[in-house]
C-alpha cells in the first residue's frame, strides 16, 4: 500500500512537471526530413535556391510553386548531403503548391496525417534554407517564434494579387526571406504544422508578411498529386478566366480529351473559319512546340496559351506524319 502511494505520487508529480524533449533534440529529429532545393533563378530578387520537406519514404517532396521550378532540373540536397535530380510531379498554382519526386527509399519524412493545428500564442519553429546559408550536408536554419494569428491571407507580390485567400498562420518569426519558401513550420515538439509561404506583401499594409500554409489546406492536393489523380481547379483552365487569358479554343483548336496525367496535345478537331483553319491545321496534328518550348502535355500547352500576350505572335510547331510544320498566330488584342 505504501509503495502504491509513492508510485502514484511520483507519477502525478512527474506528469504535472513533464519536461518537453529539449529543443536541440527536437531539431535533430526534424532536420533529416527537410531538404535544400536548387533550381532556376540566381538573378537579382529571384533566388536560385529554396526549401522543401519530405512526405514519403520514397522521396515525395512538398515545396512552393515558384520560379525555382522553371528550370529543367531541380537539384535536391538531403540533410546528409546526398544530391538528387528532382522531377516536378505536379503543381497547384491556387495553393502555391508543388510536389517534386526524387528516386530513393526509406527516407525519413513527415506523416501528413500526423500534422496538427494550433492557435495564436503557440510556440513554433521554422526550418528553411534562408539566404542559402546551408550547403551540402549542413543543416537548415532554424528560427523560433509564436503564431501571431490564424487568419485569411490577403497578399500580393508586386502588382500580382495572390489567388489564395484561405487560412494561414502568421508568425512573429521572420520567415519572409529569400530561400525560405517551402520550408516547414513545426510545433516545439517537432509536429508538422504548415509550409512556409512565399515572399509576399500584405494587400493592406504593403509590409512583408511572415505566413505559412496550414497542412490541412494542402493535404488534399498533395495526396492527389502524389496519387496521380490531380485535376487542376485553378483559373488557368476554368471558364472564369481573368481578362486577356487565351485558350486553344480561342483559335479554333479542339484538343483530344485530357484524361491521362500527360495527354499529348493531339488536335481532335478544327473549328470552321477559325484562325487554326486558316493556318491549315488538321485533326490528328500533334502540337510539339509552342513558342519554342517543348509541349509535354495538354496542360503544358494550355499554360502557354494562357500566358499569351495580346499583340504578340504565338508560334506552334506541329507534327503531321513525319513532317514538322510551323504555324504562327497573331494574338488579337481584346
Amino acid at each position, binding site marked *: *500500500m505504501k509503495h502504491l*502511494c509513492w508510485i502514484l505520487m511520483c507519477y502525478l*508529480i512527474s506528469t504535472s512537471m513533464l519536461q518537453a524533449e529539449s*529543443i536541440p*533534440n527536437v531539431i535533430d529529429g526534424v532536420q533529416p526530413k527537410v531538404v535544400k532545393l536548387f533550381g532556376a533563378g540566381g538573378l537579382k530578387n529571384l533566388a536560385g535556391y529554396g526549401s522543401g520537406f519530405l512526405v514519403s519514404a520514397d522521396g515525395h517532396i512538398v515545396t512552393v510553386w515558384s520560379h525555382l521550378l522553371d528550370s529543367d532540373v531541380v537539384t535536391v540536397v538531403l540533410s546528409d548531403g546526398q*544530391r538528387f535530380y528532382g522531377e516536378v510531379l505536379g503543381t497547384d498554382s491556387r495553393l502555391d503548391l508543388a510536389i517534386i519526386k526524387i528516386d530513393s527509399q526509406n527516407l525519413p519524412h513527415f506523416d501528413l496525417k500526423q500534422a496538427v493545428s494550433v492557435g495564436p500564442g503557440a510556440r513554433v519553429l521554422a526550418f528553411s534554407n534562408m*539566404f542559402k*546559408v546551408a550547403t551540402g550536408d549542413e543543416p537548415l536554419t532554424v528560427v*523560433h517564434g509564436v503564431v501571431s494569428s490564424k487568419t485569411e491571407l490577403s497578399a500580393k507580390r508586386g502588382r500580382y494579387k495572390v489567388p489564395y485567400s484561405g487560412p494561414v498562420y502568421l508568425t512573429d518569426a521572420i520567415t519572409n526571406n529569400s530561400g525560405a519558401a517551402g520550408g516547414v513550420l513545426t510545433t516545439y515538439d517537432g509536429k508538422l504544422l504548415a509550409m512556409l509561404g512565399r515572399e509576399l506583401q500584405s494587400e493592406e499594409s504593403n509590409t512583408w508578411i511572415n505566413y505559412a500554409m496550414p497542412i490541412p489546406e494542402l493535404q488534399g492536393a498533395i495526396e492527389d498529386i502524389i496519387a496521380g489523380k490531380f485535376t487542376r481547379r485553378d483559373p488557368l483552365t476554368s471558364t472564369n478566366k481573368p481578362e486577356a487569358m487565351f485558350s486553344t479554343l480561342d483559335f479554333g483548336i479542339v484538343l483530344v480529351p485530357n484524361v491521362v496525367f500527360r495527354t499529348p496535345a493531339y488536335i481532335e478537331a478544327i473549328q470552321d473559319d477559325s484562325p487554326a483553319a486558316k493556318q491549315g491545321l488538321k485533326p490528328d496534328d500533334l502540337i510539339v512546340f509552342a513558342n519554342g518550348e517543348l509541349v509535354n502535355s495538354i496542360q503544358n500547352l494550355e499554360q502557354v496559351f494562357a500566358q499569351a500576350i495580346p499583340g504578340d505572335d504565338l508560334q506552334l510547331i506541329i507534327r503531321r506524319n513525319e513532317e514538322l510544320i510551323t504555324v504562327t498566330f497573331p494574338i488579337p488584342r481584346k
Partner: protein
Amino acid sequence: MKSIVHRVIVLQFVFCLLCVCQKNASAQVADIVKEFEQQRVALIENMSQSVVAIFAPGGAGGGSGVIVSPDGFVVTNFHVVQGSGGFMPCGLNDGKVYDAVLVGVDPTGDVAVIKLLGRDDFPAATIGNSDELRVGEMSYALGNPFLLATDFQPTVTYGMVSGVHRYQYPAGTFLEYSDCIQVDTSINPGNSGGPLFNKDGELVGINGRIAVEKRGRVNVGAGYAISINQVMNFLDHLKSGRIVDHATLGAIVSSNSDGAVIVKSILSSSAAYRRGLRQGDELISFGGRPVRSVNQFKNVLGIYPKGWTIPLSFQRETERFDVNVQLAALHRRSELINEAPEEPQPEDQPEKPPEDQDKPFEVPNPFHQPPKDEPPAEYAHMFEEKAGYANYYFNKIARERLMKTVSDWGNFKAKPKGWALAGKVTNAAEFQIRFQPDLIASQFAKDFAVQKLDSDFTDVPPGSGGLLAALHQLQQFLSAPEDYFTDFYYLGSEPLDGTGPKTDVIITTRGLVSTRWYFDQQTGTFIGFDTQLEEYVDPCVIRFGELQKIDEIQFPTVLKIQHAGADFAELQIESLKFYEPQQEAQE
C-alpha cells in the same frame, strides 16, 4: 485496517492538493516561472557589466565590445575600431567613460582588441566554449544597436541559435566569417563587436554581421557571431599589438561529384607539400574535424592564426596519411598593411557586414562637447605607431617580459665572443662545437663541419636542418639580439608543435634565416627554438633539457635536435667555455 483507510485518505488529500495546484497554476504564474525570470534578470545584470559601448571619434558611430579579463582587455570587431586611431572613449554600464587604447587587429577575421585604462579590476565576462553550442539553445546578445545606449546600459535581446559552424563568404572586402554562429537573436547596426552569451551567461561569440536584403540594414532573423574559440586562438596574437594574419594550407580544394573534398592544386613550397600532400588527394580530417565539404575545410582553416601546426589526415587510393602541418600566412604583409578593407560595395548578395561609419540614423551625441582628439597625457606612451603594427607598444612590453626569462640564463653579453661547447652525443661519441666571430665549427666523432658566417647558411651538419646556423642564432639571441636581428618581435601564443602546452613565441629574422623562440606560458620557461634557413624548408628544431649552472651562467644539460619530423641527435652538454677569439688564433 484503520492504517489503510488512513493512508487512502492521505492519498486522496494529496490528489486534491495537486489538482488544486494545477488549477491555480493556470490562473496565475507558476512559482517556477517567476524563479526562472528572477534568475534571468540577475544573469543579465551580471552580463551587462562586461559590455562596452565603444565610441568612434566625434561621437558619431561606434559599436560594442566585451571585457575578457580584469586588466581591461576588450574584444570587438575590427570594423568598429577601424579608423578610430589609437585611442577611443568607451562607456561601461556603471555610467562612466573610460579611455581605451588600440592593442591589435585581425582584419581578415574582423576582430580587434583594445584595452580599457584606469583600473585593474574591470568586470570581465566568463568565457564559454562555442563548440558546445547546439542549434535550438537560447542566447543573449548585448550591445548598442542603433546607438540607443546613451546611458551606457546595453540593449539586451534574446533568441535562438539557428546554426553553428556556418561559413560566410567575404562580401566585397576580405572579411571572412568562418565557423561562425548563426542566431535569430536580434542583432542590428551598433551590436557589432558586442558579446553573444549562451543561456548560462558565458561568452560564446562576438556579434558582427547580419543578413540584409530587402528591408534595409535591420535584423531579419539571421545574425552571425564570430565563435569565441576562434577569438581565443587569436587572443595572444592580438595582444601582441600586430596586424594579425590568418592561415592558409597552401592548397586549393574543391568538392567532386561524390561530395569528397579533393586537393585541386598545391604549392610545392608549402609545409603540406613537404609532409606529403599532393594534388588529387582526398582530405579526411583537418584540425581534428571531419572534412565533408569545402565550407567545412574553410571553417577549420579560418579559426587558426598563421604559424600554428595542426593535424591533417588525407587519403590517396586506399592509403591513409596522418601528418602535422604548419600553416602559412594567408596574405603578404603588404596586403594587410596597405589594403585596409574598404566599405563593402553593394553586391547582389544578401549578406553585408554592417558598417557603422555611414549611419542613416540620427545619432544623439552622448558628449555635450565634442570629445578631445588628443590622447590623455598619462596614457600617451601606450600607443606607438610602427609599420605592420596596430600598436607597437604592446609588442615591446610582451617581448621585454619574455626576454627577462632569457636573461635569467645569465649575462652572456658580458662574456667573450668565443664559445666552446663540448659534450657527448647520447648513445654515440663525443662532440665539440666552436663559436668564432667568422665561423662556427663542429666535430662529431670523426666528422667535421663548418659554417662560415659571411656566406649563406646551409644544412650543416647534413640532415640537421642547419644546426650550426641555429646555434649561431642562439648565441646572438642570448648576447645581443637587438643588434643582430633585423626583425625581433613577439608573435603570440600557440600549442607547442600543434598538440603541446600553450607557448609564447618570439620571432627573429636575419637575412633569410628566421627563428621561432618558445616560452612555456604556464611556467615562463624558455624551452627551445626552431631555426629555418629559408622560407620553404623544414626547420632545425631544438628543445632544451633542464638548466645546469656553469660558473655564473645557466645552460641546458641537453639539447634535443630534430629535423623534418625525425630525430637528429641528442647532445648532452658537459661544458661551455668562453674565450677571447684572438687567443685561438695565437695558439
